[in-house]
């Protein structure tokens, strides 16, 4: 799978949020680092097909981002998401599964599998409004995976997770990344160090670094701090 981002720009009236960014991703984990306002969320929204770029193209093996086929192979977890107040965790994932066009029986099976994977089997029948931040995040991850996506885009997925949950999340991502293109954004440098083989860094809407990070380049935290001083 080749996820190609080609000269993507998002311009608002008085601000360029994303400025001619290009890169290519394949299976594996890519971390997206950048300060608040760097344009990470805007970029991820465009890559998820929910925000139209001002110019440029995004394709997955040639399939354009603005198509049903692209969304069919996509799993997306936004930074902040809501839920219908009456929903239980199970109902939430099943609802998204339905919108992803998964037929009922398969949706039911997949929902149970994923809730188990993220450790929510016991709470599956409880309403999301009773959940902690970390539990809600896990529901979010489950819904993103329900269609066996080939592309997984996660916006600050570790925010609100306690250390144990974070480890669980990293293991989960490492597992999936064997045949999925995973892109996740974070402030937490250690997330990148542990699971990302590829790193993108953004500042003021531009891509300032792209490439592997295998520890040989020294301390990522150091680099990050220097870049974002």
């Amino acid at each position: 799978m080749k996820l190609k981002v080609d000269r993507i720009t998002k311009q608002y009236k008085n601000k360029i949020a994303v400025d001619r960014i290009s890169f290519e991703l394949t299976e594996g984990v890519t971390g997206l680092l950048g300060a608040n306002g760097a344009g990470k969320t805007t970029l991820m929204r465009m890559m998820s097909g929910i925000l139209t770029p001002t110019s440029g193209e995004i394709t997955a093996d040639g399939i354009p981002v603005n198509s049903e086929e692209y969304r069919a192979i996509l799993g997306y977890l936004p930074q902040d998401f809501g839920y219908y107040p009456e929903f239980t965790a199970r109902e939430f994932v099943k609802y998204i599964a339905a919108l992803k066009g998964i037929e009922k029986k398969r949706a039911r099976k997949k929902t149970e599998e994923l809730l188990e994977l993220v450790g929510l089997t016991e709470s599956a029948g409880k309403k999301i409004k009773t959940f902690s931040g970390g539990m809600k995040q896990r529901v979010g991850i489950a819904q993103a995976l329900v269609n066996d996506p080939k592309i997984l885009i996660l916006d600050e997925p570790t925010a609100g997770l306690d250390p144990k949950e974070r480890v669980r999340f990293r293991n989960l991502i490492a597992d999936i990344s064997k045949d999925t293109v995973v892109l996740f954004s974070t402030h937490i440098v250690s997330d990148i160090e542990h699971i990302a083989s590829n790193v993108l860094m953004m500042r003021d809407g531009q891509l300032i670094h792209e490439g592997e990070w295998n520890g040989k380049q020294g301390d990522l935290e150091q680099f990050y701090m220097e870049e974002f001083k």
Partner: protein
Amino acid sequence: MASDYKDLLNEAFSAPAPKGKDAFLKNIRPREVSLFAMIWQQAAYIRVTAWLLAALVVGVAIAGAVLKLESAQNAVTMLMPFTAAVAVIESNRSRRCGMSELETATRFSLRSVVLARMTLLGAAALIVLLIAAPVISAVTCEGAVFTAVRMVIPYLLTMSISLPIERSSLGRKTDLSSLAVASVVAFVIYYVSNFGGAAFTGYLQVIGRWGVLIALGLLALTAAQQWKTINKSEELA
């Protein structure tokens, strides 16, 4: 004549087996669920209030017919704006509950969800109309069409005003704008029909002659607003 040679033409025009076909088509996964099935699925996610309100209108109509209450006509007409308001609220629930982003990033996408909800609730309103109008006209001895038009105009009026308000910044701030519109319309109906005197009779005369056209005009306006809402549903800042 060429059809006699169809098989030979097939052979003559055949091409060598394509090599990348399977890999390519694997990326273009077919739909497991049809659009129709998806719309039907959405019915389960529309809140009970919407269906109860529709049932209430029908209930009042039938009760009015059985008990021979003329006031049933007014009651039903005053309930219609609220039915419209609830439909608008249900259609916009994704945005209200913060589900827009998640729903937009799915195969069917948020547009289909909004369309599905509007379709289902519109169908429910139509059924309500088809039952309540003849039932009430049996009591009032006014034509069924006339009764239907009297019911439909406040419904469409409320909807065509509420939809743009819900899209506006005012609509984003408060949950109650549609209900407010409905209340105003219902109040106007109440006031004019009870104290309007000449204005009321005048209105009924206009409806009697031009009602169907007015209703169709409002229907077009409402449809245009619904279309706008659907198109704007996936717009982020």
